[in-house]
């Protein structure tokens, strides 16, 4: 275990994005272009502030900061451990990509959009860096609310409906999480995250523990879109503007999964979960989600809706990996957080470019898009192949680790779920690639005017990351090295 240090850095990181509000208040009207540049700069600054903790995180160390004691036992405090750092870094990277992309994509209501984008980052970082369940809950709720303006950004009737649905789902989920936190507070010793389980069968009876566990799952399951709690996802994603969908799918869904990780490793602990025997039922739920969501994705005709269903399926890979309760499975599950973020990020950003440049949303209209937007569609194809688990892309690494994890947990038959899912991924992704590149006879012509560089560059960077994460897997600093530290500490 690494050492524990105290620092004010966590709150600086978490509250840096708030500078956006200041910039907006000062210059949004008078200097719109400068202020937009500054928004992006603030996001980049946040990312840079996270980086210094890299060494500590890789050693398994912890950075703490106590903010305020609400009542005895309930504190507002930050704590950056390896998994928090991993998630925080991912958040920052994706946010920078989406922020730069937004410069080209967003044409109206800039101020509201960027303010909530920044607030969202702040709250998500708060979730990642929270030191106890109470802090996590507070930031989780704020994050849920701050996402709403991003979803209804375009203010169409459809977007409003999706927004309403989203609010109903996430607010009720918040209430459920609160109930779980209260139960944990009353029955457990502490709400703090200590790197190991704090509940135990010695003090609390099994039915109570099972209840707490299920209520937590019900609460976080909405964001992590475990079926049947996924209802808001396929509506919210197509409604939101592309960079917001990329963030929704890339990281905001993972905030739910991150909550589940905390519940797993810092509330219950692996040993207790094994004793409770909750692994297998959750595996069934995750498998059900993976297969059924993939089946739902097949008949979707709207590109972004198909991607949304795919996200529902892919996020359950994380759940599947975590609840295999084996080291390799956990590696696979945790890796999936970052890997899926880049894959789905690429796909949504590409979808955004397609919609922005051609106005096409229907998959049937995608014929020949590849010859107009060759670089975009190449990035799309790479990400789509990664979704199928093609080797040399990051999707394969997660599949392989999950497969090993399933064998390690003596539940080899869950590999079949992964394989069926990969096949279904092929069924609903390959037709898009086919239509874009191989249906029409047009020759591909690369042109400098494919789309705005502010949109193209983040997309290509994400696309390249899909390959980099799939080949240079064990290079220190990339997800695998961090995830290994987390898993070694837990198991």
């Amino acid at each position: 275990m690494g050492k524990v240090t105290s620092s004010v850095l966590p709150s600086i990181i978490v509250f840096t994005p708030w500078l956006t509000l200041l910039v907006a208040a000062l210059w949004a009207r008078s200097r719109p272009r400068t202020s937009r540049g500054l928004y992006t700069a603030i996001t980049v600054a946040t990312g840079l502030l996270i980086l210094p903790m890299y060494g500590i995180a890789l050693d398994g160390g912890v950075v703490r900061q106590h903010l305020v004691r609400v009542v005895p036992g309930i504190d507002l405090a930050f704590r950056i451990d390896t998994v928090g750092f991993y998630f925080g870094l991912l958040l920052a990277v994706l946010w920078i990509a989406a922020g730069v992309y937004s410069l080209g994509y967003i044409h109206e209501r800039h101020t509201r959009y960027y303010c909530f984008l920044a607030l969202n980052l702040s709250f998500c970082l708060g979730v990642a860096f929270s030191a106890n369940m109470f802090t996590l809950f507070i930031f989780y709720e704020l994050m849920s609310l701050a996402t709403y303006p991003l979803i209804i950004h375009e203010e169409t009737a459809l977007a409003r409906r999706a927004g309403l649905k989203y609010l109903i789902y996430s607010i009720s989920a918040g209430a459920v999480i609160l109930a779980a936190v209260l139960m944990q507070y009353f029955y457990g010793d502490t709400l703090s995250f200590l790197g190991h389980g704090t509940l135990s069968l010695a003090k609390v009876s099994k039915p109570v523990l099972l209840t707490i566990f299920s209520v937590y799952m019900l609460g976080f399951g909405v964001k992590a879109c475990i079926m049947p709690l996924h209802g808001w996802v396929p509506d919210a994603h197509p409604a939101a503007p592309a960079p917001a969908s990329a963030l929704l799918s890339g990281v905001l869904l993972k905030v739910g999964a991150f909550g589940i990780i905390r519940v797993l490793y810092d509330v219950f602990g692996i040993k207790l979960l094994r004793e409770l025997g909750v692994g297998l039922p959750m595996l069934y739920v995750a498998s059900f989600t993976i297969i059924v969501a993939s089946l739902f994705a097949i008949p979707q005709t709207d590109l972004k809706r198909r991607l949304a269903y795919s996200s529902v399926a892919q996020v359950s890979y994380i759940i599947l990996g975590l609840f295999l309760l084996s080291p390799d499975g956990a590696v696979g599950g945790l890796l999936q957080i970052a890997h899926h973020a880049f894959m789905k990020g690429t796909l949504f950003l590409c979808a955004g470019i397609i919609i922005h440049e051609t106005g096409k949303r229907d998959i049937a209209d995608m014929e020949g898009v590849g010859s107009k937007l060759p670089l975009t569609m190449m990035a799309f194809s790479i990400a789509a192949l990664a979704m199928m688990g093609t080797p040399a892309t990051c999707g394969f690494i997660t599949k392989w680790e999950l497969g090993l994890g399933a064998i390690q947990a003596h539940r080899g038959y869950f590999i079949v779920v992964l394989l069926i899912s990969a096949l279904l991924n092929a069924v609903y992704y390959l037709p898009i690639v086919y239509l874009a590149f191989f249906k029409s006879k047009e020759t591909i012509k690369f042109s400098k005017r494919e789309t705005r560089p502010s949109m193209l560059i983040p997309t290509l960077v994400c696309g390249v990351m899909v390959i980099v994460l799939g080949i240079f897997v064990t290079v220190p600093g990339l997800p695998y090295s961090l995830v290994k530290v987390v898993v070694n500490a837990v198991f």
Partner: protein
Amino acid sequence: MMLVHEAGSATVKSVLPGVAVLVPLVGMFVVLAVGDRAEKVRNWLAVTFAAGAFAVCVAMYPTVISEHSVAELNLDIFLGDFRLATDQMGLLFALVASAVWLAATLYSFNYIGHEERRTSFFVFMLLSEAACLGVFLSADFFSLFVFFEIMGLAAYPLVVHSRTYEARRAGVKYIFMAVYGGLSLLLGVLLYSNYAGVLGFTARPESAYLTTGSCFIVAGFMMFGFGIKAGMVPLHVWLPLAHPAAPSPASALLSGVMIKAGAFGFLRIVQTFQTPATEHVARLATRYATEAPATEHLTGSWRYLHDLGWVIILLALLTMVTGMVLALVQDNVKRLLAYSSISQMGFILLGVGVGAYLGPEGGIGLAGALYHILNHAFFKALLFLGVGAVYYATHELEMTKLGGLWRKMPFTFAFTLIGGLGIMGITAFNGFVSKTLLHHAEIEALNVAGGAAWLRVVDVVFMITAGGTICYIAKLIGLTFFGHQRSAHAAHAREVPAFMRVAMGALAAMVLAVGLFPGWFMRTFIIPALRVFIGLDSHAVAHLGELKFYTLDNMLAILPPLAIGVTFFLVMRRWDLFRLRLPEAAGVDYYYTRTEVGFLRLCFAGSRRYGQLRAKYYPLARTRAEYLLDLWRYANQEYRRARREGFDRIAGLPMDISGFTAYVRAVQFTGDIVYGVIIFAVVVAVLAFTLLL
């Protein structure tokens, strides 16, 4: 990755395997960068990189063969353990692959010059070469799988290159079969690592893999994956569509080389079943003393290998016959050659099957398979390039519309004829050598097994298929090059340009060289390759090196197939059977397609039905949510009013975050429900406790 690798006997650290994969890969990027701007430069670059890959493979030969060692490269970055290694068998495959690739790339200069998307063609040629060499040079099943998948995908753009309807249809079949195969192979590899405890090709004798029947599960999944690539019946359905659809140089590679990755996989599976020969020396000694059938002495994993052997033999027979029969009735030259490839893969699998069946003495079967792989690569590539040249000159692939070309295209005719004689197995051409070897192997299986009656069938099928091969190749060459010109295209044909002739000539020279110096190729390439099969009886393998091919017996052995071939020809001419067409429902593909389409229909129908149900029950849910919606409407009214009147009064900020303010109000209005839900949740939780405690 925590898996332990079996240490090879004598390994030499070398970067060459990596370089062999990297050269075409780098070439791909270079070719992509040059693009259409400088066609000539790009073409020569492509050939240079293909030649470079061949040169690297040749450079590995001394290390790998003479020092009896394995050149190895370990890449630490990829999951900590990604190994490339060249063993003797991998080297044989890599040499053949890179040689044929070089010829096909050279051939493409002119051939592809008349088509669109030329850069894309060369890019994917080089990418699939890199992946294909990767398959052959991989040190374990993990890296093999990685390259196998990439190769499958990289070849897709080659298949659909022309973008015609046929090509696209073939592409769909191809890509999905590749995906099925890849997934099955992945499952096999994961299970293998679990049971065998290693990923390398040599399983530990004491592992669960070789002591329980689990090897059959693994082998089953892997054979499904490799079988699809190898065109094994009944998994061959993509092959007769995809190989003809691709441009001819790509067809030559698909049929000549990439299909061999499947056979390579089968050989690797057989390798995993083998345990070191030392354990069987005593047992073999008893056998020589008592002259009892060897297979009765096979125990443990050898028994498994024996059983696996006859499964492969049965599949091989099915593949041979199906491919041959369907090849006979084709009119399209490339489709005929594609079915011929299926049939010839049957011959190769027969050799693998017999090699497995005979256990420690299976060297002759495996040698036959390896030799036929080498030969088939050359003559099938040559035939595809030959008919490609005909297509280049006439734009016609239907045999019935060609004819009389031998005078107009003498070089093409001569080279195609050499390829044809090779595949027929005529004395002095390379097919003769490997077919003789396979025939010997299959006779030995019959003898050693102590007269297992069903093995007699093998010999009969072997003869009939060899006869059928002679018949369909005679038909191909006869209708294409002889007789009168049956179309204007054929009448105006001209000899193809020099590069194409050079490429075909090189392959034809190889066909002749193997046919004339069979012993040299045997000793230089085939016998060393057999060393990877650690369980083989070394005396028997050494004996193979002294085998004489041109004996009277062997030469007479081609008479029965010849007679059968002539009979076939006469019978089919007499009753017009060449034009026989089977109904679609007679082929397995019909049922595969129906299943796939049925599945998709189910998905769409399910979605439609879900929509109907939603429309039916949604109003009901709506009334329940009426209260909520009312509140929401009110919130929206507030929002609109707020927008109309402006928000400057809120906190006095000149900000355009009006949405936020309205949103705060909305949250306030929905607040009731929020608190209701919270209270409800807490009450439920408390109730649950009181009930449970």
